[in-house]
């Protein structure tokens, strides 16, 4: 190093950053939340994902109910009508996963994360705001979708005399549960996105875990297979979203959802630690 400061500062003008905005208060969580809300809705992937979620979730429920109502009424399927009334959500969860992953990985893919973290260096606050915007939106969209599917699907079931009333066991719970599960699985994907920072990788991991591994573990022998099946996030979390589960061996709805929440929380915590420690 050759010499440090050769000349004194030419002047001591140091501008006060608050000079133009007297009385302005320091931004806090509300500002971060507002920023994340704007970011969330100003890219096309969000309305597309939400649109797909509603269309697939409600549409497939109605379709499945329409097709199987007659068989359900005669009892030839051996399944309960309650297993079909939110069926579309099992497909719609893929759109929630895509949206959740993109909320995080698109920032890493485009370099946006650097703008985000220079605007709000408090990384925990950024994550909390992102999580709140994502889960709030997915809860609402998921619940509305389930309600639409219920209204449409139940119309066909009622024609066969096997309609479900809102007051029937588990129906209202499954509608709200659909919203809760969509929010949870979206957040799960976002957290995996924080760990791998890559859209394709995050999607592959979450979808494989849910759709492949979640079913493969049933092949494990004895109690191992039984418990692994119960505890896999997709299996534990989705019971709350349906009045009657196809698989009778899964956990009780709220027990399962509690397990699912704990699993999501663990991955979010890991994602937070990585976000805090690693260079952006």
């Amino acid at each position: 190093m050759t010499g440090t400061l050769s000349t004194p500062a030419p002047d001591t003008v140091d501008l006060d950053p608050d000079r133009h905005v007297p009385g302005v208060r320091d931004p806090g969580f509300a500002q971060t939340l507002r920023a994340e809300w704007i970011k969330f809705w100003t890219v096309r992937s969000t309305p597309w994902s939400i649109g797909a979620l509603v269309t697939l979730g409600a549409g497939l429920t109605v379709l499945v109910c329409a097709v199987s109502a007659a068989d359900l009424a005669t009892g030839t399927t051996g399944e309960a009508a309650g297993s079909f009334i939110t069926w579309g959500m099992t497909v719609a969860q893929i759109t929630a996963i895509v949206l959740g992953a993109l909320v995080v990985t698109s920032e890493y893919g485009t370099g946006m994360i650097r703008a985000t973290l220079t605007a709000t260096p408090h990384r925990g606050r950024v994550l909390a705001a992102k999580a709140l915007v994502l889960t709030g939106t997915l809860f609402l969209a998921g619940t509305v979708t389930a309600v639409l599917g219920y209204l449409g699907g139940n119309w066909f079931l009622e024609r066969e005399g096997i309609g479900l009333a809102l007051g029937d066991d588990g129906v209202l719970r499954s509608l709200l549960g659909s919203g809760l599960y969509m929010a949870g699985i979206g957040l799960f994907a976002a957290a995996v996105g924080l760990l791998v920072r890559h859209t394709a990788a995050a999607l592959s991991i979450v979808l494989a875990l849910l759709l492949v591994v979640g079913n493969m573990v049933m092949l494990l022998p004895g109690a191992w297979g039984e418990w692994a099946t119960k505890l896999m996030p997709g299996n534990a979390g989705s019971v709350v979203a349906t009045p009657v589960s196809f698989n009778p061996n899964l956990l009780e709805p709220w027990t399962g959802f509690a397990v699912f929440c704990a699993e999501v929380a663990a991955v979010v915590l890991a994602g937070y630690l990585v976000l805090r420690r690693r260079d952006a």
Partner: protein
Amino acid sequence: MIEAQGLTKKYGDRTAVDGISFTVHPGRVTGFLGPNGAGKSTTMRMLLGLDRPTAGTVTVRGRSYADFPAPLRQVGALLEARALHPGRSARDHLRWMAASNGLPVRRVDEVLDLVGLTDVAGQRVGRFSLGMGQRLGIAVAMLGDPPVVVLDEPVNGLDPEGIRWVRTLTRQLAAEGRTVFLSSHLMSEMALTADHLVVIGRGRVLADCSMPDFIAEHAASYVRVRSPQRAEVAELLRRDGLEVTAVDDELRVQGRDAAAIGELVGRQGHLLHELTLVSSSLEDAFMTLTAASVEYTARDRTPAGATR
């Protein structure tokens, strides 16, 4: 005011920034120069709290960047690579940034106007040219009307008019009393814009001084002499203890000014066709200083796999 003290960044075994210390003062444009891989961008990322230093500190107005509740009102930054989502419009990008720091929405229109992007503010930034992207980056930097401005390669991709605009803007920002820290690989541009220089190479500070001092110290000027009696003139000057180098049909003479050389040659009755003082440029000075610390040097016919 920006202060780095013993700032160090290591990636595994590789040391990107090696214990550098420097101060960037308000009221002038400080240029940040260095060859590729010298650690400029890493230093700027640490300054903005994006990368964590392995050792040492870098502060703005005495505080770490991450400690500012509303950093955009303190430090405006244009990052080297685009930090934008291509599917978002320019206005929306500025809107969320303004919201994050509690800045009024009118600032969005003000900075769009400042950089001349008002007409295309609703377009997706993915369709922007490199120059438009740079202008948006400068709009982002100016959003919080910050007293400290950090610009990484701001003229990259700009047309001559845009380059001139950035030069005027940075000079003006410094004149307003702001601290302006600017990196550029365009030496000629830096020479016109910066008052002060911090030069780094291989992660170390090579020079920290004013622009004229830097040029005077690190690049020698010479007098170009052309004469039909080249050999005699060269012999004469050498005998007088001057350093003479013959290049093509000219002589490059160092150690005395043009007038003295002219008189010396004239007294011997030799003819002169040219006698010109050639001042060295910032680029020459930079090349001289960093020659030893260039990480990637272009070489002719280096056998593949040859060790450096």
